[in-house]
């Protein structure tokens, strides 16, 4: 994932709909690169047919 600028991050933060203060946005912006790294690791290439571990049971209990 490409790094985001502060301006780009502020747009993402506004899209969340959360009432973030400037200090809270600063904190989240600082950790955002770590989050991006985690998201990239979790979504590393895998076979197209790889199924998620969630299964839908039509017989609802």
């Amino acid at each position: 994932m490409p790094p985001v600028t502060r301006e780009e991050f502020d747009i993402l933060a506004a899209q969340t709909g959360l009432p973030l203060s400037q200090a809270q946005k600063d904190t989240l912006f600082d950790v955002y690169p770590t989050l991006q790294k985690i998201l990239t690791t979790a979504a590393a290439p895998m076979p197209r047919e790889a199924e998620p571990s969630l299964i839908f049971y039509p017989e609802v209990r």
Partner: protein
Amino acid sequence: MDAFPTIASASKAIAAKKLSPVELTKASLARIKAHDSALHSFLLVTEERAMADAKAAEARVMAGSAKGPLDGIPIAHKDIYNTADIRTTAHSKLLEHNVPTADSMVVKKWDAAGTVMLGKLATHEFAMGGPSFDLPWPPARNPWNPDHFTAGSSSGTGAAVAAGFILGGTGSDTGGSIRGPAALCGIAGIKPTYGLCSRAGVLPLSFTMDHTGPMAWTVEDCAMLLQAMAGYDPEDPASADRPVPNFTADLAKGAKGLRIGVIRHFFEDDHPVSEATRKGIDAAMDVYRGLGAEVSDVTLSPMSEYHAVGSVILTSEAYAVHQPWLKTRFNDYGELFRDRIALGAFMSSADYVQAMRRRRMLCIEVRDAMADYDILVSASQPGEAPRIDSVPKWGNLEKPSLTMPFNVTGNPAMSVCTGYGEGGLPVCMQLIARPFAEPMLFRAGHAYETATGWRGKRPALVA
């Protein structure tokens, strides 16, 4: 009777009418009164309820109609377990005055087993995000040294068991919240297989990662508590509809013939642990060899992959749970929980689905690796408990969690104390078994505990 009996020893003494549940409960309440002002392990002590439970247990024992091995045993519940007519707060301002109308299934089961409920225990806010100093109650502190962290989120249970306030208690584990505090407080704690114990009536954090489980001084005590906790519950959609085995039946079988795989790269390369922790694990493997087990190393994917998958799933699901309150009562949360969960708002639906796809691949990897092993071994925590004021806010993301891999895969996993580090605080190892192979896990843990002397040392509390 010992000053601090285990559940197993207290149970035998109660059955033989050599120990009174009422006297045992009074001693526990007196100890809480004398020492918990320094440890903050309880959010609420339910003294009246405890004495009523104890008197009822004693009457049953004297009448020869005891409910079983847990009748008269003092316990307490993590404060995310709903308790009818008793405040359940998740240690949060948001639920400061929440009084449920019904017990969670596990609370019902332990009550039916005759346990004596002493109260509700501290937790990290909503079972994630501590230690926090901006909540209505202070964080629990480590009985081995109150300046130090308990880990969490089942912080109160870890502290209260180690301090001898209760003989066992409930925990919950979404990324390590039973095994972490068990490790740092020097007790035993098991995250059972996903689906073995009901989550119904327990405040959710992450639906596919949450596990309920017991914590106690010994492995044997955990097995006894799990017996009264496990089983199918139609009210929990993830509950496994399968027979519950006898968790204590294999305890005496020892470790002879067990095949043990050490995931060494997890704790030496992926998240290097302290020398005391590593030496503790190595010494434990020598103990197992001496008992007749075969020990070798096993390699899995880097722990960062398990951690990434678990973090995305946990944060996404927790954000979904809390989204309404985050939008309307954002600043009523403590800073740590609020900021960690807010990251979920920056994740996409594709991020979540990709993590769930990767999760299945990791489950398959562990299943295949365990074809040659009965037990896997790793660390539970990187070392002794750090000072409570030195825990980094983003510690949950900076280094891969040693416990998260088995929330991702759902395997049963347990923390077992392996001794003490340079600071005199406990260190420990993590044992992992195949899904629903808890009897094997208890067998391995009990064999180690009874071959070593670590269970003989308790923290010296200061009033």
